[in-house]
């Protein structure tokens, strides 16, 4: 109930529509990886998934941000069912990769921002290694590139009042780690897959 309400509000504020360019909504396990410019990003991807997929899809988010207040923690745990990871100083006991692999399990999908944080420039920043390690450990999972556009104009980094423009969301063709493909090659290919959606 609360979840549907939040999804509806997110759709209203972002005015976003989803374009499934390279794949269709499916229950198979996926990692949706996207460019990151606004606090709305994870919320909007999550909201625009069909309801039955929304229940299976968990956004990966920064623990330092989402545990700052009780409200944020409530939203992360009870509404989005977020996977909170340590991004500042990961240790062997507190390894983001382990958390993400556990969260994936055998049913779930993830929403993941491989740039590591919100960007303010126009371009997509180089992807960090996490995406590669996920792809290496879970070759059965589909990696779906997602391009978010205009959300940074709705709620830019550092602002707290949203302006009601229309965002857009494009889902591209899933990619997988090729046999023998190196880390940098895979990360570049993933980044290009997101960038390429600008022209569709």
């Amino acid at each position, binding site marked *: 109930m609360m979840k549907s309400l939040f999804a509806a509000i997110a759709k209203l504020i972002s*005015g976003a*529509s989803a374009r499934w360019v390279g794949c269709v909504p499916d229950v198979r396990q996926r990692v949706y990886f996207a460019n990151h410019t606004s606090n709305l990003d994870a919320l909007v991807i999550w909201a625009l998934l069909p309801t039955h997929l929304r229940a299976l899809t968990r956004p990966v988010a920064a623990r330092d941000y989402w545990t700052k207040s009780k409200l944020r923690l409530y939203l992360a745990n009870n509404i989005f069912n977020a996977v909170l990871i340590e991004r500042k100083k990961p240790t062997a006991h507190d390894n983001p990769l382990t958390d993400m692999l556990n969260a994936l399990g055998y049913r779930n999908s993830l929403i993941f921002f491989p740039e590591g944080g919100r960007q*303010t420039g126009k371009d997509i920043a180089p992807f960090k290694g996490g995406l590669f390690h996920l792809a290496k450990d879970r070759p059965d999972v589909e990696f779906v590139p997602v391009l978010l556009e*205009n959300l940074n*104009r709705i709620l*830019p980094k550092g*602002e707290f*009042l949203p*302006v*009601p*423009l*229309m965002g857009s969301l494009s889902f591209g063709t899933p990619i997988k780690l090729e046999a023998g493909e190196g880390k940098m090659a895979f990360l570049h290919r993933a980044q290009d897959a997101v960038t390429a959606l600008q022209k569709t």
Partner: protein
Amino acid sequence: MKLKLDAQTYWLVGGVLALLVVSSLIGWVLSSCATSDKGKATVENLNARIRAWWMMVAVFGLAMATGGIGSIVLFALTSFLALREFITLTPTRLGDHRTLFWVFFIILPLQYYLIAIKWYGLFAIMIPVYAFLFIPIRSATAGDCENFLERTAKIQWALMICVYCISYVPALLSLDIPGYAGQNGKLMFYFVLVAQISDVLQYVWGKTIGRHKIAPSVSPNKTWEGFIGGIASATLIGAGLWWATPFTPWQSAGMSLAITLMGFGGGLVMSAIKRDRGVKDYGNMIEGHGGVMDRIDSLCFAAPVFFHLTRFFFT
């Protein structure tokens, strides 16, 4: 603001409903006649447009039935949606964020509030004077100078077209026309009907006998045949509706001509902006038509002119 629903209003509404029924029937017949793929696509789009017209007429009718305030709320929402489409399409920068917040949540509601309290002296100048000066001040305060003039002009333009010009439609309800008290709802209905039927007729004439393009680089669908046929037939219909207005038949023809010519100009200008931005439609909210802005471009340009002509000559 109370609106009288008299016999003439029912004739207007009944006429529009009859027109929709006939159009739906024609669309249904055409859909079984079309054979080529191109023909089928055109008829499919036509039927989508007709379905959307049913919705739009229902919403407009409902707003009018709730009296003046319903119409003001409807056009405020229309402004909001159009502004949203317009600003989405025009690149602004981070430095404009708070200016945009003012535009959407303070200036827009304020304009419609001024219309609701019929404060003509202020609603006619609030956006062209005060908002015009406020917008660059607010953006300059944010400290980003890149493309400053261009960004400011875009926001001012958006506000003028999507809010100021559109707000002149419900502002028709505030005119005090001698011998026409309480009947302004019909005047607004007349205006919207003439402007929109002119669009429809230009489309129909253009699709059936259109050959010579007026401005192919701006709008490939606008032809001289569509323009002349559409304007002439819409003006005739407008003249024939004089009984619902404070005008004589000849005056009504003149008014309709002004509405349809301005409406045509509006469609052309808004198309030029779309082409420049490399899109076909402003949005996808209204099936078959495109965005809200695509449907109201003619109203934007015609409303202030019709309002002021009526105000100057009839009040």
